[in-house]
């Protein structure tokens, strides 16, 4: 019996990795095909960023800048964040600008704006309610970042449609970081720290981050010091922001912790478009996959200790 037991664990230890891939794939596919309602708890960094964006509601002299510093490879994590924030801005009449310094990020900006606009059915106009500065060469990242501290229109010059930024209606009450008071950097790299180092230190701009989960741990120290006003970390951060927009912005309600605690939004609700709950659906699969990984780790460790014990016995 004991011999059979050891053989089983030995076999588990030498299990072909491809079986594990199949189990992980099923752990993701099944929850996506059969969605279930799980709770999304709101964390403080996401709440703070939401409140900061929301504080610009209906203000002509305030705007946010969204910097797309990633390509399609990190879209599953960052794209739902971008769509949620754009949707928040469109719902609450907040002026929003977008910019990117990577060629491959340029189409992602259009895709995010169009998704938020078309799925949400917002009647917003380029140059009036929002403005896409488009792709700027990476060599100009620092000159533009610093230049916007003095004069946005002079630093950026033209938008993605080739129009002079200074002539756009959206720029009427906006000059520099005093008005463009929140920069949110979406990236899979440390570029958010460049915004902190220059825009925050030199001009006192508020910086927020929408980053991949890989980068989250590295950026937590900046939250603690207040150098980041808020942070969305990976798919979880995106799911939390989606929920906040559903509860407050889409109902034109001001943020309240009590309402967050009491409100329950089932993701199986067909009234919420798929594109606006994609991160929450993804988090279902993520939770099941995490449970599978934890089970594998426990099984692997049990197998290791059983095999070691039997080897020690054999050696006497």
């Amino acid at each position, binding site marked *: 019996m004991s011999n059979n037991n050891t053989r089983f664990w030995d076999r588990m230890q030498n299990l072909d990795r491809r079986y594990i891939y199949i189990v992980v794939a099923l752990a993701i596919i099944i929850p996506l095909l059969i969605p279930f309602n799980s709770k999304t708890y709101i964390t403080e960094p996401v709440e703070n960023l939401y409140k900061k964006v929301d504080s610009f509601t209906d203000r002509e002299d305030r705007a946010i800048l969204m910097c797309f510093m990633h390509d399609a490879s990190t*879209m599953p994590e960052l794209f739902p964040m971008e769509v949620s924030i754009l949707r928040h801005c469109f719902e609450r009449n907040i002026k929003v600008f977008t910019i990117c310094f990577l*060629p491959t990020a340029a189409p992602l900006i259009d895709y995010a704006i169009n998704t938020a606009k078309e799925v949400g059915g917002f009647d917003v106009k380029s140059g009036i309610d929002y403005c896409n500065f488009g792709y*700027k060469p990476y060599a100009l990242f620092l000159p533009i970042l610093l230049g916007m501290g003095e004069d946005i229109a002079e630093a950026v010059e033209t938008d993605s449609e080739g129009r002079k930024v200074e002539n756009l209606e959206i720029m009427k009450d906006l000059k520099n970081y005093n008005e463009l008071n929140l920069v949110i950097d979406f990236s899979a790299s440390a570029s958010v720290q460049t915004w902190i180092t*220059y825009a925050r230190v030199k001009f006192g701009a508020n910086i927020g981050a929408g980053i991949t989960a890989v980068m989250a741990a590295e950026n937590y120290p900046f939250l603690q010091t207040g150098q980041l006003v808020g942070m969305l970390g*990976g798919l979880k951060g995106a799911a939390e922001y989606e929920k906040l927009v559903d509860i407050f912005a889409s109902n034109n309600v001001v943020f309240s912790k009590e309402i967050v605690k009491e409100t329950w939004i089932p993701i199986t609700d067909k009234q919420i478009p798929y594109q606006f709950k994609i991160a929450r659906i993804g988090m279902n699969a993520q939770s099941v996959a*995490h449970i599978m990984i934890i089970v594998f780790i426990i099984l692997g460790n049990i197998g290791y200790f059983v095999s070691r014990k039997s080897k020690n016995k054999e050696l006497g």
Partner: protein
Amino acid sequence: MFGTISNIVAAFLTLCIFSFLYKDNPFYKFAESLLVGVSMGYAIPLVYENAFIPYVYRPIFLQNKFLIIIPTLMGVLYIFRFSKNLSWLSRYPIVFGMAIVGMFVPMSLNARVLVQMRSTMLPLDNINTILIFIGVVTILMYFFFSKEHKGTYGKISNVGIWYMMVGFGASFGYTVMARISLLIGRIQFLLGECLGLIK
């Protein structure tokens, strides 16, 4: 029609990349090479259109701002990187590029050192600040190599190792989450946009 074709192509290339999980094969190699080629092919005209035309061609030839010729020539020196005999010329633009480091040092010192230090020197009136204080002190002691890590000193520096292990664990946990998220994104695409099974 265009959407359907692009979805079929994207689904085929996704499956080509996933086939690597079984073993390395020509389909994977094809998709990998295609990605590199398309990325470069996409970037070159975009950079030409958004960098060369507005910042070199237009100022020099249309607006007669001839001073732009100097930084342009400086940039051209980068090409000599490929020449064995003249590669030294490419060091000049690098030197100018390095000048930015001078600006980076004081600002970075403020953002990444002074402000971070200040936030570790808070009153020890709650469990978080106490944990931060213990963590900072014990990790700094672990990285102090002029004294042998033995006895009481060794035990204290061991606490620093535990702190770092927790940090690495959190970082690794987040990494696993990120990788699973990417897989979820691709499967959402295959099941949702391609097969229409998720609504």
